């Protein structure tokens, strides 16, 4: 009896719980998420996990420079992934590099999301001139490749972590703005917005309490993809010598540092940071791809 009653009265499922269930349906995406969480933890706890503080010169021994993976240091310690030209433990260097890469990538994505979403919402809500101006700028910017825009900005502002983040924000905001505007334009025509307007709610409230929540699911998807793109772009810029300064090396800069030694067969200085970069980007993309399938209402059913 109780068995037949269940399908007739399904348990009220929260949207969040359903989302989690749907997300967990893909093993590949779960794997990607697990890898990403692991990477994030490694980056956050780099100080404790890393056997060495790679930027404390007192801990470095130039005699240990360019040792292949598995070598013993003068002090008897084993370098798992070898050392770079300064005698830094690559594994520790990578953990610290990962931290900077992730911070820059995630940070810029969050800032860009805020700027882009706000402008996109305002463009959609107010329309007319604000819409025209914002969208013209977006069009202009999106018609040029990201690398070129970032290159320009860094050429203007000089190298620093802040400037890299700023450049990435300027490169990325347009993507958010365009997408959010498109979604908000659809939502704006819905009855509930009209109802809110009839109640004479202040526009800030309508935009941020009513419009924004409805734009969130696609926004999350875009943000995930943008984090991966930001990390890749930052690495590229740093590799070109236009990104983070040598005092705060990200994965990209580590790779660049090892470049000159690669031709003489000392592959590990570039290879392992590259592998870390690759795993990070791919794991984020795996999560992002599946999020897109789960959160995109058009694909449902």
């Amino acid at each position: 009896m109780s068995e037949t009653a269940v399908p007739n009265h399904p348990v009220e499922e929260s949207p969040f719980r359903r989302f989690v269930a749907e997300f967990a349906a893909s093993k590949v995406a779960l794997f990607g998420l697990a890898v990403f969480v692991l990477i994030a933890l490694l980056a956050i706890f780099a100080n404790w996990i890393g056997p060495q503080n790679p930027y404390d010169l007192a801990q470095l021994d130039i005699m240990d420079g360019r040792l292949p993976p598995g070598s013993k240091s003068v002090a008897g310690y084993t370098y798992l992934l070898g050392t770079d030209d300064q005698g830094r433990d690559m594994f520790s260097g990578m953990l610290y590099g990962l931290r900077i890469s992730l911070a820059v990538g995630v940070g810029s994505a969050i800032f860009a999301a805020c700027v882009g979403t706000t402008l996109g919402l305002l463009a959609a809500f107010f329309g007319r001139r604000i819409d025209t101006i914002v969208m013209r700028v977006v069009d202009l910017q999106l018609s040029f490749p990201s690398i070129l825009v970032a290159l320009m900005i860094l050429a203007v502002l000089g190298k620093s972590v802040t400037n890299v983040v700023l450049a990435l924000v300027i490169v990325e905001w347009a993507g958010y703005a365009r997408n959010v505007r498109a979604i908000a334009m659809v939502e704006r025509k819905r009855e509930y917005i009209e109802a809110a307007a009839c109640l004479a709610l202040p526009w800030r409230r309508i935009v941020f309490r009513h419009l924004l929540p409805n734009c969130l699911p696609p926004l999350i998807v875009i943000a995930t993809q943008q984090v991966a793109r930001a990390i890749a772009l930052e690495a590229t810029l740093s590799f070109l010598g236009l990104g983070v300064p040598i005092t705060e090396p990200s994965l990209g800069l580590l790779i660049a540092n090892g470049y000159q030694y690669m031709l003489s067969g000392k592959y590990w200085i570039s290879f392992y940071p590259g592998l870390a970069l690759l795993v990070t980007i791919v794991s984020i993309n795996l999560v992002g791809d599946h999020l897109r399938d789960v959160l995109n209402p058009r694909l449902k059913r």
Partner: protein
Amino acid sequence: MFTWLLRRLFQACFVVLAMTIIVFIGVHVIGNPVDILISPEADQAERAKIIAEMGLDRPLWQQYAYFLGGALHGDLGRSFVFNEPALKLIGGRMPATLELAVTAVLMSMCFGIPLGLYAGLKPNGILGRVIMSGSILGFSLPSFWVGLMLIMTFAVQLGWLPSTGRGETAEILGVRWSFLTWDGLRHMAMPALNLSLYNISLVLRLTRAGVRETLPMDYIKFARAKGLSPARVIFVHVLKNIMIPVVTVLGLELGTTIAFAVVTESVFAWPGMGKLIIDSINVLDRPVIVAYLMMIVLIFITINLVVDILYTVLDPRVRLETKA
């Protein structure tokens, strides 16, 4: 058609003008080139003389007017570093970049279309899935790292291909090209493949999506009902429909490819414009930066215009609409 073309040209000119302002103002906020280019030991008089020579003491708008007037005559200033006209410098490096980018785009068609066709025809096969997963990698791998791995594998470990440079070149119409010599081609193989990787994924996905979209169409079934061979159905009826979007997108991608050549050229020490701009940014060689950016803008706008025109020529449906 004619008025449409005229309007497009006018729009293009307007964008170029807008970009000159943005680029000029942007670049002239960069640090202070005086500090970098003039040795600290130089005395005050020497500094003033050099500043006056370069026109750096005048107000910004005058510098811009001077710059714009010069630009119209094809004069974008002299490189601080090479003491050569910036445009000539860029022009000298451009063939290397263009041949690399064009080769990369052609390669992306040679690889992307067959792979995409296969993945579209056999979407559930193992190879089809492998191709699609591979294309995700093509999108997400940072190209500089792929370049490094290519060098490591084919140049360092296997020793099959040279790692850097352009190799031997041959001259046609007063320009030196690598693709005319065997050695040049060997040098070009890795950088071109590296640069085309993203485009291969793009073309592959476009082709696959196109195949999936076209195959269930009635006209494909009708073509089969006529008794045509599968080869004719796929290579004429399906492919012709797919080529329009693929060629359009690839045409538009040529500009992006030229821009991304910056990365590939740095990895493979390919002496093109991209390598030049990176070096110039590092030493704040403003005229070269400006000249490069103006050149890129011009290339972008030209490409967009040409693709638009090509598109109307390729697609009979669009052709009719513009005539009407």
